[in-house]
């Protein structure tokens, strides 16, 4: 974690744009890769002219880091520019030896060099749940190093991204009220890169007009699988079999694996059961969310949905999912039909 005495103040610093004075290195953390890349772009514009970039700007990928090449670059002086900029992406994916080698360079800053390090994390797509990337250790650079450079946060998440999306809309000469902005974010998902391209699409569609409406978002934006899954859980909660079957068909058509969907349904009904069991405790929404290890928003939705199920019914639902899982894995039923039948059973009004 960043040093509480020194680092914390620095990490709170939001990148308002690089000035003329530069730290020897910048450590850019968070989930908003678009904003981080824009910051680097602005930094480069200050440090060198565009035509000099091929000679003075080098990018290294964290995935396959060529340490020898990095060392060689660090021995070269800038060409006709004030500084040479080295960008290291996916720092969190590097092994400890490589990190140690890089940190040696950071500890002995050279005036002609500017190192930018990305520690940016994006959520994996739910359709690739089975292929989650290896969990990385979350320890950033040491406190001593933080004193030498600049650590910056580019937060993601729904709340932090609303003003950012607003800025993106303004930049594209689009106007939307707060409710539409939030809906746009909910539909597209909290992925800055995707939000930016979707905003581009909306801008192109509306050109030369500018007012974005909720209907337009529903019509045009490509929904994130999470949004479809939330809609599916709402349909199940409301026992709306039509919406549920439609939702599951869309998800399966979009390539979401039936096994992954079953996994999601199990976790959803387990949440409902947990919330139902804790209902009598009269705990507040936040306390309930904390005690069950859920996000308050998820807990709130689960509380509402749990009202339409009895505890016995929730247990029966889990049994149904278990049976469907067995049928799926033993190849007894065609997966899409199996999922549809399961949802029809889960949405049955009374059994």
């Amino acid at each position, binding site marked *: 974690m960043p040093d509480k005495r020194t680092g914390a103040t620095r990490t709170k610093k939001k990148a308002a744009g690089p000035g003329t004075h530069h730290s020897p290195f910048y450590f850019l953390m968070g989930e908003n890769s678009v904003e981080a890349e824009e910051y680097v772009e602005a930094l480069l514009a200050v440090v060198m002219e565009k035509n000099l970039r091929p000679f003075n700007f080098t990018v290294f990928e964290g995935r396959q880091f060529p340490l020898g090449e990095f060392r060689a670059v660090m021995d070269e002086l800038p060409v006709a520019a004030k500084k040479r900029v080295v960008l290291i992406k996916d720092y969190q994916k590097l092994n400890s030896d490589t990190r140690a080698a890089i940190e040696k360079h950071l500890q002995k800053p050279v005036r002609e060099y500017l190192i930018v390090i990305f520690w940016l994390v994006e959520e994996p797509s739910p359709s690739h749940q089975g292929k989650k990337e290896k969990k990385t250790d979350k320890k950033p650079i040491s406190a001593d190093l933080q004193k030498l450079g600049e650590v910056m946060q580019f937060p993601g998440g729904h709340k932090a991204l609303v003003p950012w999306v607003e800025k993106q809309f303004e930049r594209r000469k689009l106007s939307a009220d707060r409710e539409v902005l939030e809906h746009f974010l909910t539909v597209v998902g909290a992925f800055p890169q995707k939000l930016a*391209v979707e905003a581009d699409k909306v801008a*192109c*569609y509306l050109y030369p007009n500018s007012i974005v409406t909720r209907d337009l978002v529903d019509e045009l934006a490509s929904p994130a699988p999470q949004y479809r899954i939330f809609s599916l859980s709402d349909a199940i909660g409301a026992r709306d079999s039509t919406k549920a079957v439609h939702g599951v068909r869309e998800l399966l058509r979009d390539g979401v694996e039936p096994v992954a969907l079953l996994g999601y349904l199990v976790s959803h009904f387990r949440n409902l059961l947990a919330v139902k069991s804790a209902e009598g405790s009269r705990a507040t929404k936040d306390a309930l969310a904390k005690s069950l290890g859920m996000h308050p928003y998820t807990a709130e939705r689960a509380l509402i949905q749990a009202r339409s199920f009895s505890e*016995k019914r929730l247990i029966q639902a889990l049994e149904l999912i278990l049976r469907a899982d067995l049928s799926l894995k033993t190849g007894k039923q065609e997966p899409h039909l199996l999922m549809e*039948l399961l949802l*029809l059973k889960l949405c049955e009004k009374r059994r």
Partner: protein
Amino acid sequence: MYGQPHAVRVLQNAIKGERVAHAYLFAGPRGTGKTSAARILAKALNCKKGPAPDPCNQCEICLRITSGTGLDVTEIDAASNRGIDEIRALRENARFAPSECRYKLYIIDEVHMLTPEAFNALLKTLEEPPAQTLFILATTEAGKVPHTIASRCQRLDFRRIPINEIVARLREIAAEEGIECEEDALGMVARKADGSLRDAVSLLDQVTSFGQNRVDIEGLNLLLGLAENVAVTEFMDVIAEKKPSHALELINRLYGEGKDLQSFLRAVTEHVRDILVVITCNGARHLVEKPEAAFLQISAQATKFKAAELMHALKILQEAGQEMRWNPQHRIILEMAVLALTHPAADVSLPALKQRVSELERRLNAALQGLHPGGQAQEPGEKPQAPGASGRDRGAVQEPPPKSFSPTLAEFETAWPTVLMEIKEADMPLGTYVKDCLLVNVEDGLLTLGFPPDRSAHKERVLQMKDLLSSLLGNAGWPLGVRCVNVEAPPAPAQSPDTGSEDGEESLQEAELKEAFVREFNGEVV
């Protein structure tokens, strides 16, 4: 471009507003215009009179792109060029500036087929796209494109083309080619194409050749094998009427005609699924991907089945389908499935037996309804049931269970607090209505609840929810029918029936039930 106004508008405005993205992802079902849109975009960007939202289609560049010989527009089929080497080569070439056009375009079709390594190589290019180079990725399965790639592309969803637009286009083609067409036949071709214009055009070609420059319904039926749909509908009618001999004859006919019984079984399974969806989802049209005429047939057949029956039928059909995978005796497997569906006595599985008992209860209930027009509601002042109200599903819970289950009032009173709790948990209002009633009697599978005059409103509500209450009692392990009576004073415990007529009625019920069981299961009373 037909049927994709949103995509056309986005792309045209992107050109007008000079906001063309460096990568697009065109996603949608086959034949909806993804590759065509990519080629038109290539022409619009590179047209000598452009960049223009509408390319001239006459200049040298436009003509070259149309003929597929444009030097700067490369189409790659990712299904057959899916490795890292192909994508590396693409990356190498993409670095060079376009030779004759303004933009260099790479159209990667079926991009979801690329290997993970190839995707990684492509990602690098998309992250730092060379100037004046555009990538258009087209796919029918957008979910299989990694998130890292998809999030860097502007995604345009291509939707199924509406039938009327397909018909309009087919009419244009027919007029240009001088083909004689029946309007209904064009509609049929469009519906068969299932939203794909390419399929519709190719089907029109086939039908035209088959009918010697004439497209009519008769020719279509012959060519498209629509007779199979007719057979499926006929098959389901036979299943609904429980006529095994007719069903076996139908299978024999199909077998004789050389039809693939496995594919017929698949069609039947799909048809059953559609009927089930119509029943359970209130006839949701968008969930049944069939032409209008077929949907109407399905809706008509839906009145002949119950959801539970269809769920059971699906299980039998899927098991048969499973068996057909490894057993080549498809005819025998299909016949066995048909017998299980049409002659339930032949099926001794637990769900089948449960269904038979339910059916028996329903028939008995119907018989009793005939004897007592008021149905079970025999209490004074209780509304007689409407003729249509005794639905098949309701019958099972309205009737008292067989004589063998005969708890006493004392036994039931002991369990009542727990039962009441379960009722409340399942349906809070119902729990409240029965909370204050008096347990009058439990006899012959019937629970009599007494309501004092000040709870008459509760009695009315309980009468309305009698089926649910009966079913909840059953869930709690007390499968009892329910009746409600008015009581003045606290009732005496466990009254025995005191009228001759009721006695007679109970013994009639018992005798009918016994007789029906003996008949249904071919048994004898010992």
